[in-house]
């Protein structure tokens, strides 16, 4: 189904604006008792709410970056935005998740994967974000490859 919602940008199709209903429905079902059912309309409403949630938090994170004169929204910005907007309960689990992800990625910080993400960040942002990760690694007693500050 292809439809133009025509709200902000007439070129955005519905399927691009929302997360897939199957994924959303699955997460809903996982939290409910086995005999629970979820109406299609409820799933659609949830899709809309999630997209709004993403936009809401991203806007806050983006504003933080703008004030700090950074161009790239990173994981820490998302976590901070959660706290600012009242989603305190999410912030700690997300930070743990983020640090675990960074840990699994090894010594190379995410921003230094610019070879794949070259259009996504500039070198200044790489340095700043790498410093964050470097500090984290130091805190953990891990060493890392030298940063190109």
């Amino acid at each position, binding site marked *: *189904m292809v439809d133009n919602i025509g709200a902000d940008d007439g070129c955005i199709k519905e399927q691009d*604006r929302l997360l897939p209903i199957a994924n959303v429905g699955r997460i809903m079902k996982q939290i409910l008792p086995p005999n629970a059912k979820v109406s299609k309309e409820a*799933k659609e409403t949830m899709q809309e709410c999630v997209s709004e949630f993403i936009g809401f938090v991203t*806007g806050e994170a983006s504003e933080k970056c703008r004030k700090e004169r950074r161009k790239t929204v*990173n*994981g820490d910005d998302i976590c901070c935005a959660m706290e600012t907007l009242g989603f305190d309960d999410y912030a700690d689990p997300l930070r743990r998740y983020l640090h675990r992800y*960074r840990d699994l990625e090894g010594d190379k910080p995410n921003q230094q994967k610019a070879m794949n993400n070259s259009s996504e960040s500039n070198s200044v942002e790489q340095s700043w974000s790498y410093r964050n990760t470097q500090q984290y690694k130091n805190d953990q007693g891990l060493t890392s490859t030298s940063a190109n500050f």
Partner: protein
Amino acid sequence: MRQPGMYSGMLSGLSGKTGPHSLPLARIKKIMKKSGDDVKMISGEAPIVFSKACELFIEELTRRSWTTTMQGKRRTLHKDDVVSAVVATDIFDFLVNLVSEPPNAADEDAPGGTSDTEH
């Protein structure tokens, strides 16, 4: 429908250890970009954090909605239950206008909404 797997494929190709994400990262990134003109660059980890955040969000909103469903002694979670949960929860204030809108976007399949298909 196959998701544009370029972005998520990149991430899983890099580490292979982060595991499958329950929500498509490329789609999350698109939605992030759409949120504002000043959102230009997004780090690779941001959609991954969001995939987890969205899970937490869906879980919380679903849990709260289900409370209303049970109060009505029903076993099927309806849109109205979601609306009730949004209205009753302070941090979901940003959703109040969204769920109170007339069902234009969500209503293409079943105008009138008399019969919700149960899955």
